[in-house]
């Protein structure tokens, strides 16, 4: 009889321990930090275009950044993200270190985009590198700055005839020409 009692006691203790353990797992600890409050800081989704590794075309990537306050900040952020390069497949095609110095869009949708000297000085490669660098810039601006219809690319405050000697940049480029 005593043995039976002891056996039942052991089973009861084990059952209680098991119940306590599973209950403890079910009850989540109080949250130490809540989800990001989207109303506190605006988050803007960007669509970026990078070069395909085979040099044929562009590949697209979505990325979220803190919402820029104005046109300059928006375009500056786009170029900065292009300069950082892709997180997925694809390759960065904008010359390394390129940044935005000034940007202006007139009523007709002509964007004058003044890029830093690195855009021209650090360009390396042939026509495919040049074509995709410009295409990456144009497609990214087209996807994220709807008010821009044409883009005149200048460098360090001055017009440039070409980036690498293969495509002319002396005139504004139509965004719709870069599908």
């Amino acid at each position: 009889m005593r043995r039976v009692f002891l056996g039942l006691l052991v089973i009861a203790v084990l059952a209680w321990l098991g119940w306590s353990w599973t209950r403890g797992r079910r009850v989540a600890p109080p949250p130490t930090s809540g989800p990001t409050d989207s109303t506190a800081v605006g988050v803007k989704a960007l669509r970026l275009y990078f070069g395909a590794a085979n040099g044929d075309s562009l590949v697209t990537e979505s990325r979220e950044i803190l919402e820029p306050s104005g046109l300059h900040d928006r375009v500056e952020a786009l170029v900065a993200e292009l300069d950082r390069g892709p997180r997925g497949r694809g390759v960065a095609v904008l010359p390394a270190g390129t940044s935005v110095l000034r940007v202006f869009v007139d009523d007709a949708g002509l964007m004058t985009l003044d890029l830093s000297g690195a855009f021209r000085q650090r360009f390396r490669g042939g026509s495919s590198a040049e074509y995709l660098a410009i295409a990456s810039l144009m497609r990214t601006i087209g996807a994220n700055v709807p008010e821009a219809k044409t883009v005149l690319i200048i460098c360090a405050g001055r017009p440039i005839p070409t980036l690498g000697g293969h495509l002319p940049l002396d005139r504004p480029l139509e965004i719709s020409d870069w599908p």
Partner: protein
Amino acid sequence: MNHRGLSVGLLFTLVLGVLGADWRQPPPGEGPDTAPVHQIEGRPCIAVDDLARLLDATKFWRADVRRLVLRSGTHTVVLTADNPFVVVDERTLWLGAPVRSREGELQVPVALVDSLPSDSTLVRLTYDSRRARVVVLPTSGRVESPRWMVQGDLTRIVFPADHADEAVVVARARAHFRLRFGGIFMGELPDEAPPGSHVRAIRSIAASGGSAFECEIASGAAGYRLIQDPARRRVTLEIAGAPADGFEAFAPESPPGERRLKVVVIDPGHGGSDAGVIAGPAVEKDLTLSLAKRVGAEIAQSGVRAVLTRSDDRDLSSEERAEIANRLGADLVLAIHFDGFVDPHARGATAYCPPALVTEPERAGDAGRGADREAAAPAGAPGRVSLLPWRDVSTRHAVQSRAFAEALLSALELSGQGPTRLRERLPYDLLGVNAPGVVLECATLTAPDDRERVMQEEGLKQLAVSIADAVGAYQRNR
């Protein structure tokens, strides 16, 4: 021998083995991968020496029993003179006709090649009855006889192909619409088009390392679509009579007939302080000049005057290049470049040609010169004067330029110097050039294979011949 002595001995043997090994790859195009077939007593036969060469086999001859053993890797083929039976890896096969001895060499019925083991240790052979040759099948396999059918306003040509994903359209003009496959063609082409077909004729054309076909498309056809179906091992070319979603337009064309070429200007890109792309030992400005000289010599052989914008290493502005072409009254301008990209996977050739910036009625209103008039709207069509900046003057020759670009890319693809791509965008080198023109990036120097090819004498020569062929095709315009 102690352990130290054994180790030194093993190391010595290993070094000798490494030094003695032949690491060289055979240059592309040098591989003897076909052999002729002869008729012996009315049966197609292959000479045993050719068979051994194709199979990379070693021969062992036993004169007493007139028996020849071919050994290739783990496989053996036992042939006996005047005997229709062969033993392949312990399997006895009947060839339908005996192995014959002719002029001291055994002649083997080609029925054998289809009975050889099909595993990765032995090359795959096949008998091409059309060319009367035994052929080593490439890894891309074969392309078989197409089926040609008309369904309403749609013409469909279905090619059975082992590697359907390798099919590509390499020329988009109706008069010479070209398809290229990785596999070799082992079938027959239909003699006649079915009634109502938008494809008038199809023929096989030469292609390096695969097969290619040229179709003649009716002028009423609106677009084409190429459907690759690797799972079902087939490629379907669809030609539609009316514009439809998913169909691509054909290249704009001028009327057929010979184009008179008197002067072709060849412009070697970069030069002087502008080296262009530098990749390892390859310097673009030197390669463009070397290739331009070769292209000029090739073109001159056909009686056309070829003029280079520079014949030495010096700076030349785009305005100076344009002025040379315009002063000479060039009928055609080819700017030669080599490409470079940030990723070594990018390879092949790219052609840039000016886009058409003006509509056809506007073009008719222009006082066009020379070759461009053939691309203009019909005489008497209502026209209006439009102003075109001199900078964009090459866009007036957009149709001719596109035709030349198509001819160049097709020649490069068919000679195995692709992949190729076409970009219709006004290139810097053609600003102010009043003639049909193309900027051709002949290869990509940052791609190791491309670079190695063009750094060799033979590679540049092959490029020059292909470009000269394209000039000839453009001139013939058929």
